[in-house]
């Protein structure tokens, strides 16, 4: 009886797992179908002939590869900045004493409760006035400072035992030295968590790029996909191949760091 129950649960679990990844499988598969088979009758689950031309054409398309490249470079710079700017602040709030500490802390935390939607248009006006439209800077800089990530890192730093620093203090290390040589190396788990979230947020973003970028040399990958979809509405095989390629970096990132990510759900401290 117990065994039957276990088997049923296992089958149900695997079924849900497969349904969860099916849309991605279906997308990648459609990219291999010839134009005549991707939609229409008779319905074909697998392509009769595996057609590599869609993926091939995209790999040779300057616009598509450039868009992937520009987004990738932006996402890397963005991620590094997010980690440094927020971890420095997190360290200051966790370990240093200075006048107006509480005021500054509340000032930073307060921004967590301002939804991006409420300030979307005034943010656009600000970056327009700063002459930042159509630059990589406009995509990167506005999102770097993040109260949520700062708070997450600060919680992590508060959990590091003070004894670790004592030896360094006796050796006359500066506060920045302690951050640099003791805190940074210990931060890997929280940096991975914040870093992946930031990279994904940048890579997957749509509304900010379509508002601030009209120069097609700087088109972000999701922007490129969305425009391509509406311009070439019938080229389904090509659109699916493009979506697959745009999703691959995020899936690779997940595959490499999945241990950290699944562990990280506990680390984010929602309890």
């Amino acid at each position, binding site marked *: 009886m117990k065994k039957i129950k*276990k088997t049923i*649960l296992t089958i*149900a*679990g*695997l079924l*849900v797992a497969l349904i*969860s*990844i099916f*849309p991605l499988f*279906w*997308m990648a598969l*459609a990219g291999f179908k010839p134009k005549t088979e991707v*939609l229409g009758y008779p*319905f074909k689950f697998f392509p009769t002939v595996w057609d590599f031309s869609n993926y091939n054409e995209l790999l040779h398309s300057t616009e598509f590869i450039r868009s992937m490249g520009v987004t990738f470079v932006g996402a890397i710079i963005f991620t590094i900045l997010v980690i*440094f*700017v*927020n971890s420095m*602040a997190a360290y*200051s709030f966790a370990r*240093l*004493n*200075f*006048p107006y500490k509480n005021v*500054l802390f509340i000032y*930073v935390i307060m*921004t967590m*409760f*301002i*939804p991006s*939607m*409420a*300030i*979307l*248009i*005034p943010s656009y*006006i*600000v970056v327009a006035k700063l002459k930042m439209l159509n630059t990589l800077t406009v995509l990167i800089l506005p999102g*770097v*400072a993040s*109260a949520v990530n700062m708070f997450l890192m600060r919680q992590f730093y508060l959990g590091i035992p003070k004894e670790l620093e004592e030896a360094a203090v006796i050796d006359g290390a*500066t*506060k*920045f030295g302690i951050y640099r040589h003791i805190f940074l190396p210990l931060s890997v788990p929280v940096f991975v968590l914040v870093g992946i979230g930031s990279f994904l947020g940048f890579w*997957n973003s*749509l*509304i900010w790029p379509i*508002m601030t970028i009209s120069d097609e040399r700087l088109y972000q990958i*999701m922007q490129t*996909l*969305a425009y391509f979809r509406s311009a070439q509405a019938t080229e389904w095989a090509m*659109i*699916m191949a493009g*979506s697959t390629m*745009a999703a691959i970096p*995020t*899936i690779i990132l*997940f595959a490499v760091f*999945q241990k950290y990510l*699944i562990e990280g759900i506990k680390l984010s401290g929602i*309890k």
Partner: protein
Amino acid sequence: MNNTLKKNDMKTAYIMLLPIVGLLTVFVVIPLLYAIFVSFYQWSFYQDSIFVGFSNYLLVLKDQAFYKAMWTGIKFALIVIPIQFVAAFLFAHLIKNLTAKVGGFVKTSIYIPHVISGVVASIVFMFIYNYNGGLANYIVSLFGSEPIPFLADVKYALGSISLPAIWLGFGFTTLIILAGINDIPDSYYEAAEIDGANTFHKMIFITLPLLKNVFLYVIVVGLTGAIQQFDLAYVMTNGGPLNSTMTPNLFIYTHFKNDPYMGYTISAALLLFVIIGVISALMFRLINSKQVED
């Protein structure tokens, strides 16, 4: 000596805080203050602004389209979050009963959609929903029905864009709840079993009350996130048909694109922000007080 050291620490602290404070000021606080300021003006890029008092707000509050967008956002959230939450809660229990190996595979698979963008999800589901030979209509045809215009019919459009939202969020929600369940000591369940509790009893009397905070987090964050959905509505339907999928964020964006006077749009965004804030505060109180009564 000690004093100079302290002074140095202070300097270090301020230098390390300068980037975050500066960036937040320029890109969050100033835009917010500016939004409040502009909401009292008739403002455009091309003209001098005129002070108009509360008339922008009145204009928004008299606009049927604004209420419709708000209502669409709420409906969307009320379709997505309850389904996602109940499914995730049940499935988290299921995963707990799997062997480590199968459980690991299942957890990995359901996490993957979490890294997928709204744009990719939109495109995949548009393809699946396609009227002429999409997978969904192929399945419909097996039952002998006529194809369904999932995204073009007012009856189906909002439900159809909800499905990818559920798909994107289901796995991650499950894993958060699972992490909470794993924190509950097994002895609680064992004690309940000795008292003759079945699976359902254990869920209701042990898991639910102990995971109050996790649920609160998942539901409030889920609802406020869903109301602000943009990507799915923008790519899949662009708000149509007949504005039936015009979510609040898309409403704001559409106005931004078409209306040179920013005062109205900015006032609408601020009002939505207040309304969403009130809703999440109410939700918070509602769920919280219910737990206390138990």
